[in-house]
């Protein structure tokens, strides 16, 4: 109840803030209407940048992710502005012929690879999830006869992998097709001496009755096996796990638009019914078993669109009856016994209902309200040592509700609010102690305001709550609160700044404070300020300042002596110089981290660090470029001791560390599909112990690395594609392990498509 009140208070605060913004924004000046088009290398600008049409120069693209030069400092990530074409990516993933194409690498102007930022990668993953969900319910008969053979060899240091694949579909007539997929993977790791073999074969028959009804039959066989290869003469290889699964599925899918019940429109209906018969055999170190199951499964989706909205209802379920048997060699205490056989009859089911209502409110808002119910049960042989080999039943229930409200009261102001509430319960028939009943609730709001020149203001608030009802000492509540404020402002054409503040509190409150002594709070705060200045086109610079604080509070007196607060202060100036074919970047970081113990001042600690990194990139010719990187780090650490006869605490250094790294890489790309590179790297560090201000060398480490590589990505003929990425590395140094003294990293794949789509088109024309 208290939790609900707190959730309510957060939502109230969020809504109050939203209301304040809405009211305040009505007084703000309306920005000029500067909607811009985005042809060629021009991208549409965010509302913050709408004062002019921004023309950006493309640096690199893989088709849907594009990297541009920054139009103004601080606009992008590490000097580049990234964009992602969601619609293009979805279209690519839904196109069977393009879905598995290898994407072009994204590189900087000197040909060196760039890492895609997390924000773009997350977006890309979400688009892939959407595409997968669309493909899962899409009935595709395929086109013609289009077999594809794939083979790949991957060697990464001491890990070796060989993959083979074959996939084809054959259109028997306009209403029927056959398809076969074979995937075979063999892997061996020299360090763990583990060999793993996986194979999956799927064959299917698809039949289309009409546009609204289709059916499929499929037979799948999957084998997985892991062995540990003998390491000594006389020792035998040992089987660790082996499993095979064979399943046969028949399925009918149908849809019927605009259904009516008693004259009332209930909407479009999509439904399916299937029957799966499966057999699973398995063997591990102490048991062997098998399970046969017959399981009907079904789904129904009703969707009724209305003006500016949609209501939908989804129901999916399955009900399986199985016979299982298992032979065990080890009893519940781990003692080897004679073989014991157990036979069981299992009933497994899954049922889920989800209802949702989407509504748009003109141009200023939209909402989504959804609720779901889940009921699942599965029976299996327990793996818990106490109940090993006995039939266990796991029953799960779950109810949840979600609400989302997005508002755009005026141009440049958007408010997004979400609320979730859910209860889930898991029960075990044998292992009662694993019972759990968890109530979860969360609410968050995000306000973005960017309707003035060159600025953006973002506020986020989030609260989460979990009430964990367990039958052990972990029962209790977990509370989380998060808040952040970010402000970005372009001051002049050459100067802009970012300022941000973030705070997060995690609290663990256990029901039995005396038995579970780990009641704790963890508070994290961060404030940062970045100012950027680019006086000329060839020079850009910035200074970043940051203060971080992490407060670890253990509540119980047995744990509280270790309570501490870590405070970090950081300053980092950096610059970028661009002279045509030369690019020089550098940064200088100084930081200090204080660990302050609440109850043990003698343990207080300080780490000071200075680091500089300088990078020089040079294009020697259009196809040849180099990159040199130099890094130097100096750090020392120590604690505070109270001097004898005085109350003052003085910093006493205990250790000093020097580290320097240098690397030089040359890249040569004589042809668009062929690339070569050589890399030399040196990494050295020395650690000194400091006692009574005298430094003594404690450890010294030098590592030298030379590697050469080449890359080929080419369609050799109309039907054969080759993709190779090869690197050989040699390392030298006192503490280099045998595994990494000299090794190869190889990724080579060959694809053969004898009747590719391209040939069909040419043949037909």
């Amino acid at each position: 109840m208290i939790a609900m009140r707190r959730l309510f208070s957060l939502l109230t605060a969020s809504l109050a803030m939203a209301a304040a913004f809405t009211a305040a924004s009505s007084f703000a000046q309306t920005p000029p209407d500067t909607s811009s088009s985005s042809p060629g290398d021009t991208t549409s600008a965010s509302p913050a940048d709408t004062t002019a049409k921004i023309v950006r120069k493309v640096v690199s693209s893989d088709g849907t992710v594009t990297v541009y030069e920054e139009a103004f400092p601080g606009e992008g990530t590490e000097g580049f502005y990234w964009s992602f074409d969601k619609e293009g990516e979805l279209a690519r993933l839904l196109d069977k012929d393009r879905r598995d194409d290898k994407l072009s690498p994204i590189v900087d102007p000197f040909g060196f690879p760039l890492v895609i930022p997390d924000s773009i990668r997350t977006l890309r993953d979400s688009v892939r999830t959407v595409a997968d969900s669309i493909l899962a319910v899409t009935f595709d008969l395929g086109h013609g006869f289009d077999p594809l053979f794939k083979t790949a060899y991957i060697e990464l240091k001491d890990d070796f992998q060989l993959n083979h694949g074959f996939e084809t579909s054959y259109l028997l007539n306009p209403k029927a097709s056959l398809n076969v997929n074979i995937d075979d993977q063999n892997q061996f790791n020299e360090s763990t001496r583990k060999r793993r073999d996986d194979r999956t074969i799927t064959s299917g028959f698809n039949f289309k009755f009409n546009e609204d009804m289709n059916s499929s039959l499929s037979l799948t066989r999957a084998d997985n096996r892991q062995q540990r290869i003998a390491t000594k003469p006389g020792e035998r290889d040992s089987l660790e796990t082996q499993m095979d699964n064979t399943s046969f599925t028949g399925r009918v899918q149908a849809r019927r638009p605009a259904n009516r019940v008693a004259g009332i429109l209930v909407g479009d209906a999509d439904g399916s019914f299937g029957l799966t018969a499966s057999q699973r055999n398995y063997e591990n170190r102490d048991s062997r078993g098998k399970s046969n199951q017959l399981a009907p499964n079904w789904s129904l989706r009703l969707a009724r669109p209305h003006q500016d909205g949609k209501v939908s209802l989804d129901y999916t379920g399955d009900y399986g009856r199985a016979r299982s048997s298992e032979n065990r060699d080890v009893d519940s205490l781990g003692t080897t016994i004679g073989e014991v056989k157990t036979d069981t009859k299992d009933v497994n089911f899954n049922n889920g209902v989800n209802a949702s209502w989407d509504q748009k409110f003109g141009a200023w808002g939209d909402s989504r309200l959804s609720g779901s119910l889940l009921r699942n049960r599965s029976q299996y042989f327990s793996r818990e040592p106490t109940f090993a080999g006995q039939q266990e039943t796991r029953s799960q229930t779950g109810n949840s509700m979600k609400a989302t409200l997005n508002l755009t009261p005026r141009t440049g102001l958007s408010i997004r609010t979400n609320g979730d509430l859910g209860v889930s319960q898991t029960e075990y028939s044998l292992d009662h102690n694993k019972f759990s009943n968890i109530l979860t609730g969360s609410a968050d709001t995000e306000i973005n305001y960017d309707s003035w020149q060159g600025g953006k203001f973002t506020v986020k608030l989030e609260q989460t709550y979990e009430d964990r009802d367990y039958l052990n000492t972990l029962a209790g509540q977990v509370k989380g609160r998060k808040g952040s404020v970010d402000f970005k402002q372009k001051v002049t054409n050459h100067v802009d700044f970012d300022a941000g503040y973030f705070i997060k509190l995690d609290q663990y409150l256990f029901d039995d404070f005396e038995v579970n002594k780990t009641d704790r709070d963890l508070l994290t705060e961060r404030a940062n300020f970045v100012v950027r200045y680019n006086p000329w086109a060839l020079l850009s610079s910035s200074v970043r300042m940051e203060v971080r604080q992490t407060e670890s509070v253990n509540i119980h007196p047995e744990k509280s002596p270790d309570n501490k607060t870590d405070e970090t202060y950081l300053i980092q100036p950096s610059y970028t110089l661009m002279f045509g074919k030369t690019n020089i970047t550098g940064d200088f970081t100084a930081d200090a981290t204080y660990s302050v113990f609440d109850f043990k001042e003698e343990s207080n600690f300080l780490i000071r660090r200075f680091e500089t990194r300088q990078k020089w990139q040079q294009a020697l010719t259009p196809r040849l470029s180099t990159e040199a990187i130099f890094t130097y780090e100096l750090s020392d650490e120590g604690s505070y001791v109270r001097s004898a006869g005085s109350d003052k605490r003085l910093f006493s250094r205990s250790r000093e560390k020097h580290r320097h790294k240098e690397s030089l890489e040359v890249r040569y790309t004589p042809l668009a599909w062929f690339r070569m590179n050589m890399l030399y790297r040196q990494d050295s560090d020395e650690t000194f112990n400091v006692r009574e201000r005298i430094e003594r060398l404690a450890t010294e480490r030098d590592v030298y690395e030379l590697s050469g590589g080449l890359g080929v990505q080419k369609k050799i003929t109309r039907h054969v594609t080759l993709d190779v990425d090869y690197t050989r590395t040699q390392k030298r140094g006192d503490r280099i392990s045998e595994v990494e003294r000299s090794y190869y990293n190889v990724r080579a794949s060959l694809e053969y498509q004898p009747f590719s789509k391209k040939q069909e088109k040419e043949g037909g024309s």
Partner: protein
Amino acid sequence: MSRRIISRPGGLAAAALLILIQAGCGLFDTREPVEGEGGQSFWQPPTSPEIIVRNLEVAFENGIFNDYQRALTADFTFHPDLADSLDVEGGRPGAFANWTRDVETETAAAIFATADSLSLVMDPPSQEIIGDDRLLKQNYILTLQTVGGATIYAGEVWFFVRPVAGEWYIYHWEDIATSSSRRSWGFLKGNTRPGV
């Protein structure tokens, strides 16, 4: 004119901040701890890969789960041995799914709670360099002592660690089942994860 344009959002920002502060009053206050005696300063500043693994080890043995959590990065992942994965998930589908830092910490706390005492012995690591990161490979023996007796888990752990502003943190953990007579720590984790 431009000054006016900027001054309004400035005022607005101040108003929003005021509301945020109002809304946040008391929300981010930590609780008052009960002062105790002793303590062993388990957490060492993780200035080397070995120290962060040692921090995790002693935090687990002593049940200091703020420290256990702090040893792991926010994008932490765990990968069990295939034999354990097939074995455990054969009965508990989803036992290893979406294994995040929070799941790892909660599972470690659950293991800690099931035992009267817990001992973790790890061999000195062998270290490999992977770009700026390090891979530490260590054999381990984990002993859980309960009223019913001692249960021993053994195997090999691979910790992938990376430097963040001069300090090292664990971002990936692989468990390798190497013993033919003992279950692995990964198996224990999959079987103990609460709420699945």
